[in-house]
């Protein structure tokens, strides 16, 4: 599934902008998405990801910018003339038509011969394993089945581009995890390029080849799930994807392959260089699972701090410690539960040491 080939620009947005009265819902978005890619637009509600998707589908006209699909500018095309199909958030299945008719709807609009429609609908229903349900009405199916009908309907016309609007948003958690992989398998088996919108970072991370993190109408970072997680471009992305400890401070050492910052808890060393000026404001981000915790002093000298355990949360597969430090800030540390009983023996109120490798921290400038 890992696909880090340079995108060939199958779908390109150029300085795309959408303004509703005074608010800029989508602001100067330029993306390039490769053929066969599963691309996620990730952001909280109101970040403009849905508006962006609706512009791709043709439901909204961009105020400025271009949308190129295979080199052709489609920004002014009405939705029914675009070679792409969308799977709607609430599925938008036609309640008055049965499953077979729902899937056949798009094919009938193309005016395909009856026999071919029959064959293609049959293929689609087999693909999503709903063949026996062809004569049911949408409301007679479960949420997961409805979701598969919606997928079959949006794939039936063999679109060049598949748009997914919160594809798993209406399912409950257990079903969602199961469906994620199923959905990706189906999408990859038909080799369709796919743009999905989601507010759920886990969904984006498991399903997408690349993620665009959006906030306030702008794209803040585009990258593979790993890049976005391990090398967030700024504070917002670091904070939005997963949990993070942010240490605000000033640059104190600036060398080619390492740097350090003076922060509230002391000097933090980072294993990569920044091209900045000494004493500039910056932050160091450290993921909670990259911090180690122990009651006895370890044999390290850098990035070693002390604190007092304020809270412990047991999550089954891992523990989270909230450690209070001298400057009043609270550090989040997670430790996976590899043995049956809490091996560290750390409990509330313990004085602890915590430390991390110097390549665990990431310098964030904005």
């Amino acid at each position, binding site marked *: 599934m890992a696909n880090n080939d340079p995108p060939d620009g199958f779908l390109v947005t150029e300085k795309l902008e959408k303004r509703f009265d005074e608010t800029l819902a989508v602001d100067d978005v330029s993306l390039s998405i490769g053929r066969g890619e599963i691309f996620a637009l990730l952001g909280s509600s109101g970040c403009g990801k849905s508006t962006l998707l609706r512009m791709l589908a*043709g439901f909204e006209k961009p105020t400025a910018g271009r949308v190129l699909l295979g080199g052709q500018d489609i920004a002014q095309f009405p939705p029914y003339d675009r070679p792409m199909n969308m799977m709607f958030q609430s599925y938008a299945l036609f*309640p*008055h038509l049965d499953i077979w008719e729902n899937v056949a*709807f798009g094919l009938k*609009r193309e005016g395909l011969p009856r026999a071919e429609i029959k064959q293609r609908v049959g293929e689609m229903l087999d693909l999503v394993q709903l063949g026996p349900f062809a004569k049911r009405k949408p409301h007679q199916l479960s949420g997961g089945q409805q979701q598969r009908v919606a997928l079959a309907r*949006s794939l039936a016309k063999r679109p060049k581009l598949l748009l997914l609007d919160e594809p798993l948003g209406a399912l409950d958690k257990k079903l969602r995890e199961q469906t994620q992989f199923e959905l990706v398998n189906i999408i990859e088996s038909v080799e369709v390029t796919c743009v999905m919108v989601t507010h759920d970072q886990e969904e984006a991370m498991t399903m997408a080849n690349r993620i665009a993190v959006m906030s306030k109408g702008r794209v803040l970072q585009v990258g593979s799930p790993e890049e976005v997680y391990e090398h967030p471009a700024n504070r917002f992305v670091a904070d939005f994807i997963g949990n993070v400890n942010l240490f605000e401070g000033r640059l104190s050492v600036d060398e080619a392959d390492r740097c350090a910052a003076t922060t509230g808890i002391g000097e933090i060393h980072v294993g990569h260089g920044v091209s900045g000026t000494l004493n500039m404001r910056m932050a160091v981000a450290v993921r909670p699972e990259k911090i180690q915790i122990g009651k006895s002093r370890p044999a390290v000298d850098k990035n070693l701090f002390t604190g007092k355990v304020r809270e412990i949360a047991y999550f089954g597969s891992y523990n989270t410690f909230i450690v209070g430090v001298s400057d009043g800030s609270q550090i989040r540390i997670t430790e996976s539960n590899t043995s049956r009983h809490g091996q560290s023996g750390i409990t509330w109120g313990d004085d602890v040491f915590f430390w991390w490798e110097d390549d665990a921290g990431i310098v964030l400038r904005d």
Partner: protein
Amino acid sequence: MAKFSLPMPGRRFVIGVPYAWLVLFFLLPFLILLYISFVDMGNDIHPFKPIWDTETGVLKLKYENYWSIFRRSEDDALFDTIYIEAYLRSIWYALCTALLCLVIGYPFSYFIARSKASLRPALLMMVMLPFWTSFLLRVYAWKGILADQGIVNQALMWLGITNEPIFLLYTNVSMLVGMTYVYLPFMILPLYATLVKMDFRLLEAAYDLGASPFKAFWLVTVPLSRSGIIAGFMLVFIPSVGEFVIPSLLGGPENIMIGRVVWDEMFTSNNWPRATALAVIMIAFIVVPLAIYYHSTGESADNRK
């Protein structure tokens, strides 16, 4: 799972009240109507005779009241009487009225259903506003509008479209205008009720799948508003069939509707039995489409969530 329920006597009472109402004010009058339709004509004091012979006490049903509606007395020709003609004419004009109301009312309802939620109560109020004026006044107002010297003709002449007044009043046109105008709200309200519930994202889904706006309307909006269309159609059609006031105020003298025929039989010929027979047949005409309507709504209710 304790379910709240009224104690039995209370429940019987609550259910009983509407039934009692229907029996007292619908079933009983209808039975009286049915009774009169099977008896002989009476005189000025007693407009109908009892159903049994006063001397022998033998029950005798006078089917002739019904027969005479379908059979011409002069030559026994079937289905060629002024009554049948009046029925067919009434049904025809009621159909026209219902269709006109549908054609005018649908865009109206669609517009209200798609307007901003804050605007809708005001727009609905405007649909119902005419009810605040007397029905008769409104029909009379149309006389003023459609008369030879009325606003419409004056405007047409001023615009130079015509030199002399067009004869509008007391024609089928003026009658249909009046009926459509009066019954339009009965079409708009049920249509609005179904359209406002429709999920307009379904239209986007249809566009997305390649349907033009017209196709999407025809394949999604219309089928989904079917129950509203049928309800509105029935609400306009049924009272239009028996409409008496509008045809007599706005309609032409040559087009006698069934409502007028019943009135004439009742008050001019003093033939109550025939008048009631005419009414019973009219009710039968109306019950059939109603039964179809209830059948279809029952069906669509099954198909919905």
